[in-house]
Protein backbone atom coordinates (compact mmCIF):
# COMPACT_ATOMS: atom_id res chain seq x y z
CA UNK A 1 0.00 0.00 0.00
CA UNK A 2 1.23 3.49 -0.73
CA UNK A 3 1.90 5.55 2.37
CA UNK A 4 -0.15 8.71 2.81
CA UNK A 5 2.96 10.63 3.72
CA UNK A 6 6.43 9.43 2.95
CA UNK A 7 9.45 11.61 3.62
CA UNK A 8 12.78 10.22 2.49
CA UNK A 9 16.22 11.59 3.33
CA UNK A 10 14.94 15.05 4.26
CA UNK A 11 17.79 17.38 5.09
CA UNK A 12 17.60 21.04 6.07
CA UNK A 13 20.25 23.27 7.55
CA UNK A 14 19.85 26.86 8.74
CA UNK A 15 23.41 28.04 8.38
CA UNK A 16 25.32 25.63 10.57
CA UNK A 17 22.26 24.55 12.54
CA UNK A 18 20.92 21.14 11.63
CA UNK A 19 17.15 21.22 11.61
CA UNK A 20 16.73 17.94 9.75
CA UNK A 21 19.18 15.38 8.48
CA UNK A 22 18.30 12.29 6.52
CA UNK A 23 14.83 12.30 8.04
CA UNK A 24 12.75 9.44 6.79
CA UNK A 25 9.20 9.16 8.00
CA UNK A 26 6.34 7.06 6.72
CA UNK A 27 2.78 7.53 7.85
CA UNK A 28 -0.07 5.36 6.64
CA UNK A 29 -3.72 6.18 6.16
CA UNK A 30 -5.63 6.17 9.46
CA UNK A 31 -2.65 6.56 11.77
CA UNK A 32 -2.41 8.98 14.68
CA UNK A 33 1.26 9.71 15.16
CA UNK A 34 2.83 11.82 17.88
CA UNK A 35 6.13 13.63 17.50
CA UNK A 36 8.14 14.51 20.59
CA UNK A 37 11.50 16.14 21.08
CA UNK A 38 13.14 18.96 22.94
CA UNK A 39 13.06 22.56 21.70
CA UNK A 40 15.03 22.95 18.51
CA UNK A 41 14.95 19.25 17.72
CA UNK A 42 13.38 19.93 14.33
CA UNK A 43 9.72 19.08 14.99
CA UNK A 44 8.24 22.27 13.62
CA UNK A 45 10.78 22.27 10.80
CA UNK A 46 9.44 18.89 9.81
CA UNK A 47 5.90 20.30 9.62
CA UNK A 48 7.19 23.27 7.65
CA UNK A 49 8.95 20.97 5.21
CA UNK A 50 5.96 18.64 4.90
CA UNK A 51 3.64 21.54 4.06
CA UNK A 52 5.96 23.29 1.62
CA UNK A 53 6.62 26.33 3.82
CA UNK A 54 10.30 25.45 3.67
CA UNK A 55 12.08 23.67 0.85
CA UNK A 56 14.43 20.89 1.93
CA UNK A 57 18.13 21.08 0.99
CA UNK A 58 17.88 17.41 0.02
CA UNK A 59 15.36 14.63 0.11
CA UNK A 60 11.79 14.37 -1.01
CA UNK A 61 8.27 14.09 0.26
CA UNK A 62 5.55 11.98 -1.30
CA UNK A 63 1.88 12.55 -0.58
CA UNK A 64 -0.06 9.43 -1.49
CA UNK A 65 2.73 8.67 -3.92
CA UNK A 66 2.90 12.14 -5.39
CA UNK A 67 6.13 14.13 -5.17
CA UNK A 68 5.42 17.53 -3.59
CA UNK A 69 8.75 19.13 -4.51
CA UNK A 70 8.28 22.77 -5.44
CA UNK A 71 4.65 22.93 -4.31
CA UNK A 72 3.59 25.86 -2.14
CA UNK A 73 1.66 25.44 1.12
CA UNK A 74 -1.45 26.43 -0.82
CA UNK A 75 -1.11 23.66 -3.37
CA UNK A 76 -0.19 21.11 -0.73
CA UNK A 77 -3.25 22.18 1.25
CA UNK A 78 -5.34 21.62 -1.84
CA UNK A 79 -3.90 18.10 -2.03
CA UNK A 80 -5.59 17.40 1.30
CA UNK A 81 -3.02 18.38 3.92
CA UNK A 82 -4.14 20.84 6.60
CA UNK A 83 -2.15 22.26 9.43
CA UNK A 84 -2.68 23.96 12.74
CA UNK A 85 -0.08 26.13 14.39
CA UNK A 86 1.82 26.38 17.61
CA UNK A 87 0.99 30.09 17.76
CA UNK A 88 -2.59 30.39 16.44
CA UNK A 89 -2.65 31.95 12.97
CA UNK A 90 -5.97 33.75 12.75
CA UNK A 91 -7.57 36.78 11.14
CA UNK A 92 -7.76 39.11 14.08
CA UNK A 93 -9.77 41.76 12.25
CA UNK A 94 -12.62 39.36 11.43
CA UNK A 95 -15.18 37.58 13.57
CA UNK A 96 -14.82 33.99 14.71
CA UNK A 97 -17.53 32.88 12.30
CA UNK A 98 -15.94 34.80 9.42
CA UNK A 99 -12.66 33.02 10.07
CA UNK A 100 -14.54 29.75 9.82
CA UNK A 101 -16.49 30.80 6.71
CA UNK A 102 -13.25 31.65 4.93
CA UNK A 103 -12.01 28.15 5.62
CA UNK A 104 -15.20 26.66 4.21
CA UNK A 105 -15.10 28.97 1.18
CA UNK A 106 -11.49 27.99 0.55
CA UNK A 107 -12.38 24.30 0.80
CA UNK A 108 -15.15 24.69 -1.75
CA UNK A 109 -12.73 26.41 -4.10
CA UNK A 110 -15.53 28.77 -5.07
CA UNK A 111 -14.18 32.20 -4.31
CA UNK A 112 -16.31 34.54 -6.33
CA UNK A 113 -16.59 38.31 -6.16
CA UNK A 114 -20.36 38.68 -6.20
CA UNK A 115 -22.23 36.12 -4.07
CA UNK A 116 -21.81 36.80 -0.34
CA UNK A 117 -19.51 34.91 2.00
CA UNK A 118 -22.43 34.57 4.40
CA UNK A 119 -24.44 31.91 2.57
CA UNK A 120 -26.69 29.40 4.23
CA UNK A 121 -24.79 26.13 3.73
CA UNK A 122 -21.56 27.69 4.97
CA UNK A 123 -23.01 29.57 7.92
CA UNK A 124 -24.85 26.41 9.01
CA UNK A 125 -21.81 24.19 8.76
CA UNK A 126 -19.58 26.88 10.26
CA UNK A 127 -21.79 27.23 13.30
CA UNK A 128 -21.91 23.46 13.68
CA UNK A 129 -18.16 23.19 13.72
CA UNK A 130 -17.84 26.10 16.13
CA UNK A 131 -20.39 24.44 18.40
CA UNK A 132 -18.37 21.27 18.48
CA UNK A 133 -15.44 23.23 19.74
CA UNK A 134 -17.51 25.21 22.19
CA UNK A 135 -16.91 28.43 20.32
CA UNK A 136 -20.37 29.25 19.00
CA UNK A 137 -21.06 31.82 21.71
CA UNK A 138 -18.22 33.79 20.17
CA UNK A 139 -19.36 33.35 16.57
CA UNK A 140 -20.14 36.98 15.87
CA UNK A 141 -17.36 38.40 18.00
CA UNK A 142 -14.00 39.53 16.80
CA UNK A 143 -11.20 36.98 17.17
CA UNK A 144 -9.43 39.58 19.27
CA UNK A 145 -12.00 39.02 22.02
CA UNK A 146 -11.30 35.30 22.13
CA UNK A 147 -9.15 34.12 25.05
CA UNK A 148 -5.89 32.32 24.33
CA UNK A 149 -7.31 28.82 24.71
CA UNK A 150 -10.19 29.66 22.39
CA UNK A 151 -7.81 30.92 19.74
CA UNK A 152 -5.93 27.69 19.89
CA UNK A 153 -9.11 25.71 19.33
CA UNK A 154 -10.27 27.96 16.53
CA UNK A 155 -6.88 27.54 14.86
CA UNK A 156 -7.36 23.77 14.88
CA UNK A 157 -11.03 24.04 13.89
CA UNK A 158 -10.08 26.07 10.82
CA UNK A 159 -7.76 23.28 9.71
CA UNK A 160 -10.32 20.54 10.37
CA UNK A 161 -13.00 22.49 8.49
CA UNK A 162 -10.92 21.94 5.36
CA UNK A 163 -11.73 18.21 5.68
CA UNK A 164 -8.13 17.16 5.09
CA UNK A 165 -6.86 13.64 4.52
CA UNK A 166 -3.85 14.46 6.62
CA UNK A 167 -3.80 16.88 9.52
CA UNK A 168 -0.59 18.21 11.02
CA UNK A 169 -1.00 19.78 14.43
CA UNK A 170 1.72 21.76 16.13
CA UNK A 171 1.30 21.37 19.90
CA UNK A 172 -2.50 21.24 20.05
CA UNK A 173 -2.56 21.43 23.84
CA UNK A 174 0.01 24.17 24.32
CA UNK A 175 -1.67 26.99 26.20
CA UNK A 176 -4.51 24.75 27.32
CA UNK A 177 -4.75 24.32 31.07
CA UNK A 178 -3.72 20.94 32.52
CA UNK A 179 -7.21 20.04 33.69
CA UNK A 180 -8.70 20.81 30.28
CA UNK A 181 -6.20 19.24 27.95
CA UNK A 182 -7.61 15.70 27.99
CA UNK A 183 -11.05 17.05 27.31
CA UNK A 184 -9.69 19.07 24.39
CA UNK A 185 -7.92 16.02 23.03
CA UNK A 186 -10.99 13.79 23.50
CA UNK A 187 -13.05 16.16 21.40
CA UNK A 188 -10.35 16.47 18.80
CA UNK A 189 -9.80 12.76 18.52
CA UNK A 190 -13.55 12.23 18.25
CA UNK A 191 -13.77 14.65 15.34
CA UNK A 192 -10.70 13.20 13.67
CA UNK A 193 -11.94 9.61 13.95
CA UNK A 194 -15.31 10.59 12.62
CA UNK A 195 -13.73 12.30 9.64
CA UNK A 196 -11.13 9.52 9.24
CA UNK A 197 -8.40 12.06 9.26
CA UNK A 198 -4.86 10.76 9.49
CA UNK A 199 -3.05 12.90 12.03
CA UNK A 200 0.47 13.79 12.98
CA UNK A 201 0.84 15.98 16.04
CA UNK A 202 3.80 17.55 17.68
CA UNK A 203 3.43 17.47 21.45
CA UNK A 204 5.36 18.45 24.53
CA UNK A 205 3.11 16.69 26.96
CA UNK A 206 4.11 13.05 27.43
CA UNK A 207 0.77 12.14 29.02
CA UNK A 208 -1.07 13.33 25.94
CA UNK A 209 1.25 11.38 23.67
CA UNK A 210 0.83 8.24 25.78
CA UNK A 211 -2.88 8.43 25.73
CA UNK A 212 -3.68 9.48 22.17
CA UNK A 213 -1.03 8.15 19.83
CA UNK A 214 -0.31 4.57 18.99
CA UNK A 215 2.95 5.50 17.49
CA UNK A 216 5.47 8.12 18.46
CA UNK A 217 8.49 9.57 16.68
CA UNK A 218 11.27 11.02 18.76
CA UNK A 219 13.23 13.90 17.23
CA UNK A 220 16.62 14.96 18.46
CA UNK A 221 18.80 17.55 16.72
CA UNK A 222 17.20 16.94 13.36
CA UNK A 223 17.29 13.15 13.57
CA UNK A 224 14.59 10.60 14.29
CA UNK A 225 16.11 8.66 17.16
CA UNK A 226 13.19 6.40 17.93
CA UNK A 227 9.94 5.27 16.32
CA UNK A 228 7.44 2.91 17.88
CA UNK A 229 4.72 2.45 20.44
CA UNK A 230 4.69 5.12 23.15
CA UNK A 231 4.89 2.59 25.95
CA UNK A 232 8.19 1.17 24.75
CA UNK A 233 9.69 4.25 23.16
CA UNK A 234 9.03 6.67 25.98
CA UNK A 235 10.40 4.23 28.55
CA UNK A 236 13.78 4.20 26.82
CA UNK A 237 16.47 5.97 28.82
CA UNK A 238 18.16 7.60 25.80
CA UNK A 239 14.83 8.94 24.58
CA UNK A 240 13.96 10.34 27.99
CA UNK A 241 17.32 12.03 28.15
CA UNK A 242 16.89 13.56 24.70
CA UNK A 243 13.34 14.73 25.25
CA UNK A 244 13.18 15.60 28.91
CA UNK A 245 16.83 16.31 29.56
CA UNK A 246 16.97 13.60 32.23
CA UNK A 247 16.50 9.85 32.25
Amino acid at each position, binding site marked *: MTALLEAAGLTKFFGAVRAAEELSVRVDEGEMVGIVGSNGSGKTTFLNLATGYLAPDRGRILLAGRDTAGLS*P*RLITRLGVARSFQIPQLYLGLTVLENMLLSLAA*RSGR*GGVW*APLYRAPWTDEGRQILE*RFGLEAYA*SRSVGELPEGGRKLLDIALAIALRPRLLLMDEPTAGV*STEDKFEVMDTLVGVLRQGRITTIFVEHDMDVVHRYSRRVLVFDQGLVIADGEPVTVLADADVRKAVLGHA
Partner: protein
Amino acid sequence: MGPRPRPSPLLPLGALVLFLLAPLVLSGWIVFLLTVAWAKALAVLGVVLLLRGGLLTFGHALYYAAGAYAAGMAVKYLHVREGLALLGLALLAGVGTSALLGLLVARYRGVYFALLNLAFSMVLYGVLLKFYAITGGTDGLGLPAPPLAGLRPVAQSLRLALYDLTLVLAALLIYAAHRFSASPVGYTLRAIRDNEVRVEYMGASVWRTIYVSYVIAGGLASVAGALIGLSVGHITPDLSFWSQSGEFVFVAILGGTGSVLAPVVGSIVFEFVRNYAFELSPYTWQMTLGIVLLVIIFFLPGGLWSLSALARRLPRRGAPPPFRTSPRDGAGAAGARTADQAREPRGGR
Protein backbone atom coordinates in the same frame (compact mmCIF):
# COMPACT_ATOMS: atom_id res chain seq x y z
CA MET B 1 -29.84 31.23 11.90
CA GLY B 2 -29.73 33.89 9.23
CA PRO B 3 -26.71 35.71 7.89
CA ARG B 4 -25.32 38.67 9.74
CA PRO B 5 -27.51 41.76 10.10
CA ARG B 6 -27.24 43.80 6.94
CA PRO B 7 -27.23 47.57 6.77
CA SER B 8 -30.57 48.76 5.47
CA PRO B 9 -30.47 49.74 1.80
CA LEU B 10 -33.09 52.42 2.41
CA LEU B 11 -30.73 55.09 3.66
CA PRO B 12 -28.28 54.99 0.74
CA LEU B 13 -31.15 54.78 -1.75
CA GLY B 14 -32.89 57.74 -0.14
CA ALA B 15 -29.66 59.70 -0.24
CA LEU B 16 -29.27 58.85 -3.93
CA VAL B 17 -32.76 60.18 -4.70
CA LEU B 18 -31.96 63.37 -2.79
CA PHE B 19 -28.77 63.81 -4.78
CA LEU B 20 -30.67 63.24 -8.03
CA LEU B 21 -33.16 65.93 -7.05
CA ALA B 22 -30.52 68.33 -5.73
CA PRO B 23 -29.96 70.24 -9.03
CA LEU B 24 -33.50 71.59 -8.70
CA VAL B 25 -32.35 73.83 -5.88
CA LEU B 26 -28.58 74.05 -6.29
CA SER B 27 -26.58 76.35 -8.56
CA GLY B 28 -24.88 74.98 -11.64
CA TRP B 29 -21.47 75.48 -10.11
CA ILE B 30 -22.32 73.37 -7.10
CA VAL B 31 -23.81 70.68 -9.32
CA PHE B 32 -20.51 70.65 -11.19
CA LEU B 33 -18.56 70.29 -7.94
CA LEU B 34 -20.80 67.40 -6.94
CA THR B 35 -20.25 65.72 -10.30
CA VAL B 36 -16.51 65.94 -9.79
CA ALA B 37 -16.79 64.68 -6.22
CA TRP B 38 -18.92 61.68 -7.15
CA ALA B 39 -16.68 60.77 -10.06
CA LYS B 40 -13.49 61.00 -8.04
CA ALA B 41 -15.13 59.01 -5.26
CA LEU B 42 -14.91 56.01 -7.60
CA ALA B 43 -11.13 56.29 -7.84
CA VAL B 44 -10.99 56.74 -4.08
CA LEU B 45 -13.18 53.67 -3.69
CA GLY B 46 -10.51 51.66 -5.50
CA VAL B 47 -7.89 52.96 -3.06
CA VAL B 48 -10.17 52.06 -0.16
CA LEU B 49 -10.73 48.50 -1.40
CA LEU B 50 -6.97 47.97 -1.60
CA LEU B 51 -6.44 49.55 1.80
CA ARG B 52 -8.75 46.96 3.30
CA GLY B 53 -6.19 44.41 2.20
CA GLY B 54 -3.46 46.50 3.82
CA LEU B 55 -2.29 47.72 0.42
CA LEU B 56 -1.55 51.41 0.08
CA THR B 57 -1.00 52.74 -3.43
CA PHE B 58 0.60 56.06 -4.24
CA GLY B 59 0.01 55.66 -7.95
CA HIS B 60 -3.69 55.12 -8.42
CA ALA B 61 -3.92 58.21 -10.61
CA LEU B 62 -2.28 56.02 -13.25
CA TYR B 63 -5.62 54.32 -13.91
CA TYR B 64 -7.52 57.56 -13.51
CA ALA B 65 -5.41 59.09 -16.27
CA ALA B 66 -5.53 55.91 -18.34
CA GLY B 67 -9.32 56.09 -18.36
CA ALA B 68 -9.40 59.79 -19.20
CA TYR B 69 -6.83 59.48 -21.98
CA ALA B 70 -8.48 56.38 -23.41
CA ALA B 71 -11.62 58.48 -23.81
CA GLY B 72 -9.69 61.48 -25.11
CA MET B 73 -7.75 59.49 -27.68
CA ALA B 74 -10.85 57.59 -28.76
CA VAL B 75 -12.44 60.94 -29.59
CA LYS B 76 -9.37 62.27 -31.36
CA TYR B 77 -8.24 59.22 -33.30
CA LEU B 78 -11.19 56.85 -33.50
CA HIS B 79 -13.75 59.64 -33.76
CA VAL B 80 -15.94 58.00 -31.17
CA ARG B 81 -18.59 60.48 -30.06
CA GLU B 82 -20.99 58.51 -27.92
CA GLY B 83 -20.33 59.20 -24.22
CA LEU B 84 -21.32 55.73 -23.03
CA ALA B 85 -18.96 54.15 -25.56
CA LEU B 86 -16.16 56.38 -24.29
CA LEU B 87 -16.83 55.22 -20.74
CA GLY B 88 -16.74 51.61 -21.90
CA LEU B 89 -13.42 52.16 -23.67
CA ALA B 90 -12.03 53.88 -20.59
CA LEU B 91 -13.02 50.94 -18.43
CA LEU B 92 -11.39 48.60 -20.91
CA ALA B 93 -8.18 50.62 -20.82
CA GLY B 94 -8.14 50.73 -17.03
CA VAL B 95 -8.82 47.03 -16.63
CA GLY B 96 -6.30 46.16 -19.34
CA THR B 97 -3.54 48.30 -17.85
CA SER B 98 -4.13 47.12 -14.30
CA ALA B 99 -4.34 43.51 -15.47
CA LEU B 100 -0.92 43.90 -17.09
CA LEU B 101 0.87 45.85 -14.35
CA GLY B 102 -0.91 43.80 -11.70
CA LEU B 103 1.08 40.78 -12.82
CA LEU B 104 4.14 42.44 -11.32
CA VAL B 105 2.63 44.61 -8.61
CA ALA B 106 0.43 41.92 -7.00
CA ARG B 107 3.56 40.17 -5.74
CA TYR B 108 4.38 43.09 -3.50
CA ARG B 109 3.15 44.55 -0.24
CA GLY B 110 3.92 47.53 1.91
CA VAL B 111 6.41 50.07 0.66
CA TYR B 112 7.12 48.17 -2.54
CA PHE B 113 3.45 48.14 -3.49
CA ALA B 114 3.05 51.81 -2.65
CA LEU B 115 6.13 52.98 -4.52
CA LEU B 116 5.96 50.66 -7.54
CA ASN B 117 2.54 52.09 -8.25
CA LEU B 118 3.93 55.58 -7.80
CA ALA B 119 6.76 54.83 -10.20
CA PHE B 120 4.44 53.47 -12.89
CA SER B 121 2.10 56.43 -12.58
CA MET B 122 5.02 58.80 -13.01
CA VAL B 123 6.10 56.88 -16.10
CA LEU B 124 2.66 57.46 -17.59
CA TYR B 125 2.91 61.12 -16.60
CA GLY B 126 6.22 61.29 -18.45
CA VAL B 127 4.75 59.59 -21.51
CA LEU B 128 1.79 61.94 -21.61
CA LEU B 129 4.10 64.94 -21.40
CA LYS B 130 6.72 63.73 -23.81
CA PHE B 131 4.77 62.24 -26.68
CA TYR B 132 2.94 65.47 -27.28
CA ALA B 133 2.31 64.67 -30.92
CA ILE B 134 -0.10 62.00 -29.76
CA THR B 135 -1.14 63.12 -26.29
CA GLY B 136 -1.07 66.87 -26.73
CA GLY B 137 1.67 67.25 -24.10
CA THR B 138 0.98 69.83 -21.40
CA ASP B 139 -1.90 71.19 -23.47
CA GLY B 140 -3.70 67.89 -23.10
CA LEU B 141 -6.68 66.85 -25.14
CA GLY B 142 -10.15 68.27 -25.47
CA LEU B 143 -13.25 66.20 -24.91
CA PRO B 144 -16.15 67.85 -26.73
CA ALA B 145 -19.65 67.57 -25.28
CA PRO B 146 -20.68 64.01 -26.03
CA PRO B 147 -24.07 62.66 -26.99
CA LEU B 148 -25.29 60.25 -24.31
CA ALA B 149 -27.06 57.08 -25.39
CA GLY B 150 -27.51 58.68 -28.78
CA LEU B 151 -29.23 61.78 -27.38
CA ARG B 152 -27.52 65.11 -27.80
CA PRO B 153 -28.36 67.26 -24.82
CA VAL B 154 -28.25 71.03 -25.28
CA ALA B 155 -25.54 72.97 -23.49
CA GLN B 156 -27.39 73.75 -20.25
CA SER B 157 -28.83 70.32 -19.85
CA LEU B 158 -25.52 68.62 -20.66
CA ARG B 159 -24.14 69.48 -17.26
CA LEU B 160 -27.24 68.02 -15.68
CA ALA B 161 -27.17 64.92 -17.86
CA LEU B 162 -23.53 64.31 -16.93
CA TYR B 163 -24.38 64.79 -13.29
CA ASP B 164 -27.16 62.22 -13.48
CA LEU B 165 -24.99 59.84 -15.46
CA THR B 166 -22.15 60.16 -12.96
CA LEU B 167 -24.48 59.65 -10.05
CA VAL B 168 -26.16 56.57 -11.47
CA LEU B 169 -22.93 55.01 -12.66
CA ALA B 170 -21.23 55.72 -9.34
CA ALA B 171 -24.18 54.25 -7.44
CA LEU B 172 -24.06 51.07 -9.52
CA LEU B 173 -20.30 50.68 -9.11
CA ILE B 174 -20.47 51.39 -5.39
CA TYR B 175 -23.10 48.70 -5.07
CA ALA B 176 -20.81 46.33 -7.01
CA ALA B 177 -17.96 47.22 -4.64
CA HIS B 178 -20.26 46.49 -1.74
CA ARG B 179 -21.02 43.05 -3.16
CA PHE B 180 -17.34 42.47 -3.70
CA SER B 181 -16.54 43.42 -0.11
CA ALA B 182 -19.04 40.91 1.22
CA SER B 183 -17.91 38.13 -1.15
CA PRO B 184 -15.38 35.40 -0.35
CA VAL B 185 -12.68 37.20 -2.33
CA GLY B 186 -13.48 40.49 -0.59
CA TYR B 187 -13.18 38.85 2.82
CA THR B 188 -10.04 37.01 1.78
CA LEU B 189 -8.52 40.38 0.95
CA ARG B 190 -9.17 41.53 4.52
CA ALA B 191 -7.81 38.23 5.80
CA ILE B 192 -4.61 38.84 3.84
CA ARG B 193 -4.08 42.04 5.76
CA ASP B 194 -4.22 40.04 8.99
CA ASN B 195 -2.40 36.86 8.08
CA GLU B 196 -1.24 35.89 4.62
CA VAL B 197 0.31 32.67 5.76
CA ARG B 198 -2.99 31.33 7.01
CA VAL B 199 -4.76 32.28 3.79
CA GLU B 200 -2.30 30.11 1.86
CA TYR B 201 -2.67 27.34 4.44
CA MET B 202 -6.40 27.38 3.75
CA GLY B 203 -5.68 26.70 0.13
CA ALA B 204 -6.77 30.15 -1.06
CA SER B 205 -4.53 32.16 -3.35
CA VAL B 206 -3.14 35.37 -1.89
CA TRP B 207 -1.74 36.45 -5.23
CA ARG B 208 -4.97 35.92 -7.11
CA THR B 209 -6.99 37.75 -4.47
CA ILE B 210 -4.72 40.77 -4.62
CA TYR B 211 -4.58 40.65 -8.40
CA VAL B 212 -8.36 40.57 -8.79
CA SER B 213 -8.77 43.39 -6.27
CA TYR B 214 -6.10 45.42 -8.02
CA VAL B 215 -7.82 45.08 -11.39
CA ILE B 216 -11.17 46.06 -9.87
CA ALA B 217 -9.57 49.10 -8.24
CA GLY B 218 -7.96 50.01 -11.56
CA GLY B 219 -11.26 49.68 -13.40
CA LEU B 220 -13.03 51.95 -10.89
CA ALA B 221 -10.37 54.65 -11.27
CA SER B 222 -10.51 54.53 -15.07
CA VAL B 223 -14.25 55.15 -15.09
CA ALA B 224 -13.67 58.03 -12.69
CA GLY B 225 -11.07 59.48 -15.05
CA ALA B 226 -13.36 59.31 -18.07
CA LEU B 227 -16.25 60.88 -16.14
CA ILE B 228 -14.00 63.74 -15.06
CA GLY B 229 -12.77 64.16 -18.62
CA LEU B 230 -16.33 64.38 -19.93
CA SER B 231 -17.42 66.80 -17.20
CA VAL B 232 -14.45 69.13 -17.44
CA GLY B 233 -14.21 68.78 -21.21
CA HIS B 234 -10.43 68.75 -21.13
CA ILE B 235 -7.69 66.41 -19.85
CA THR B 236 -4.03 67.03 -19.03
CA PRO B 237 -1.10 64.87 -17.88
CA ASP B 238 -1.63 66.17 -14.33
CA LEU B 239 -4.32 63.50 -14.01
CA SER B 240 -1.45 61.01 -13.63
CA PHE B 241 0.78 63.16 -11.41
CA TRP B 242 1.74 61.90 -7.96
CA SER B 243 -0.19 64.65 -6.23
CA GLN B 244 -3.38 63.30 -7.79
CA SER B 245 -2.62 59.85 -6.40
CA GLY B 246 -1.79 61.47 -3.09
CA GLU B 247 -5.15 63.22 -3.17
CA PHE B 248 -6.96 59.90 -3.63
CA VAL B 249 -5.11 58.46 -0.67
CA PHE B 250 -5.89 61.56 1.35
CA VAL B 251 -9.60 61.41 0.57
CA ALA B 252 -9.65 57.66 1.28
CA ILE B 253 -8.21 58.25 4.73
CA LEU B 254 -10.40 61.30 5.27
CA GLY B 255 -13.56 59.35 4.51
CA GLY B 256 -12.37 56.18 6.16
CA THR B 257 -12.30 52.58 5.00
CA GLY B 258 -15.24 51.43 7.08
CA SER B 259 -17.83 51.55 4.29
CA VAL B 260 -18.03 51.68 0.51
CA LEU B 261 -19.99 54.90 1.00
CA ALA B 262 -17.21 56.57 2.94
CA PRO B 263 -15.32 57.62 -0.23
CA VAL B 264 -18.37 59.62 -1.34
CA VAL B 265 -18.54 61.43 1.97
CA GLY B 266 -14.79 62.08 1.94
CA SER B 267 -14.83 63.19 -1.68
CA ILE B 268 -17.69 65.67 -1.32
CA VAL B 269 -16.20 67.21 1.80
CA PHE B 270 -12.82 67.39 0.09
CA GLU B 271 -14.03 69.06 -3.12
CA PHE B 272 -15.99 71.71 -1.30
CA VAL B 273 -13.27 72.51 1.20
CA ARG B 274 -10.66 72.66 -1.55
CA ASN B 275 -12.82 74.92 -3.66
CA TYR B 276 -12.80 77.53 -0.92
CA ALA B 277 -9.49 76.88 0.84
CA PHE B 278 -7.46 76.85 -2.36
CA GLU B 279 -8.76 80.26 -3.35
CA LEU B 280 -7.86 81.56 0.07
CA SER B 281 -4.21 80.53 0.06
CA PRO B 282 -2.78 78.40 -2.76
CA TYR B 283 0.64 78.09 -1.10
CA THR B 284 -0.62 76.44 2.03
CA TRP B 285 -3.06 73.99 0.50
CA GLN B 286 -0.76 70.96 0.62
CA MET B 287 0.38 71.92 4.08
CA THR B 288 -3.24 72.00 5.19
CA LEU B 289 -3.75 68.52 3.72
CA GLY B 290 -0.65 67.27 5.50
CA ILE B 291 -1.76 68.65 8.83
CA VAL B 292 -5.29 67.27 8.46
CA LEU B 293 -3.82 63.88 7.57
CA LEU B 294 -1.67 63.95 10.70
CA VAL B 295 -4.72 64.78 12.78
CA ILE B 296 -6.65 61.87 11.26
CA ILE B 297 -3.78 59.43 11.77
CA PHE B 298 -3.46 60.30 15.44
CA PHE B 299 -7.00 61.18 16.46
CA LEU B 300 -9.50 59.75 13.99
CA PRO B 301 -8.04 56.58 12.45
CA GLY B 302 -11.43 55.53 11.09
CA GLY B 303 -11.91 58.76 9.14
CA LEU B 304 -15.12 60.77 8.86
CA TRP B 305 -17.16 57.61 8.45
CA SER B 306 -16.29 56.52 11.98
CA LEU B 307 -18.02 59.65 13.25
CA SER B 308 -21.33 58.25 12.03
CA ALA B 309 -20.72 55.09 14.05
CA LEU B 310 -19.85 57.25 17.02
CA ALA B 311 -23.10 59.17 16.70
CA ARG B 312 -25.31 56.10 16.65
CA ARG B 313 -23.24 54.02 18.96
CA LEU B 314 -25.51 51.64 20.79
CA PRO B 315 -24.91 50.62 24.35
CA ARG B 316 -22.15 48.01 24.21
CA ARG B 317 -23.42 44.46 23.59
CA GLY B 318 -22.85 42.93 27.04
CA ALA B 319 -19.57 41.45 28.14
CA PRO B 320 -18.23 38.45 26.19
CA PRO B 321 -19.65 35.15 27.41
CA PRO B 322 -17.62 33.22 29.94
CA PHE B 323 -15.14 30.93 28.35
CA ARG B 324 -13.27 27.78 29.22
CA THR B 325 -10.75 26.18 27.00
CA SER B 326 -12.71 22.96 26.94
CA PRO B 327 -14.69 22.08 23.86
CA ARG B 328 -18.04 20.53 24.34
CA ASP B 329 -19.71 17.62 22.74
CA GLY B 330 -23.34 18.44 23.39
CA ALA B 331 -25.69 21.11 24.59
CA GLY B 332 -26.24 19.37 27.93
CA ALA B 333 -22.58 19.41 28.77
CA ALA B 334 -22.48 23.05 27.79
CA GLY B 335 -25.14 23.90 30.30
CA ALA B 336 -23.34 22.05 33.04
CA ARG B 337 -20.13 23.83 32.20
CA THR B 338 -21.69 27.25 32.42
CA ALA B 339 -22.87 26.37 35.89
CA ASP B 340 -19.33 25.26 36.75
CA GLN B 341 -18.04 28.54 35.50
CA ALA B 342 -20.43 30.47 37.71
CA ARG B 343 -19.10 28.73 40.81
CA GLU B 344 -15.50 29.36 40.00
CA PRO B 345 -13.98 32.27 41.82
CA ARG B 346 -12.94 34.99 39.44
CA GLY B 347 -9.48 36.32 39.96
CA GLY B 348 -8.16 39.73 39.24
CA ARG B 349 -11.13 41.76 40.38
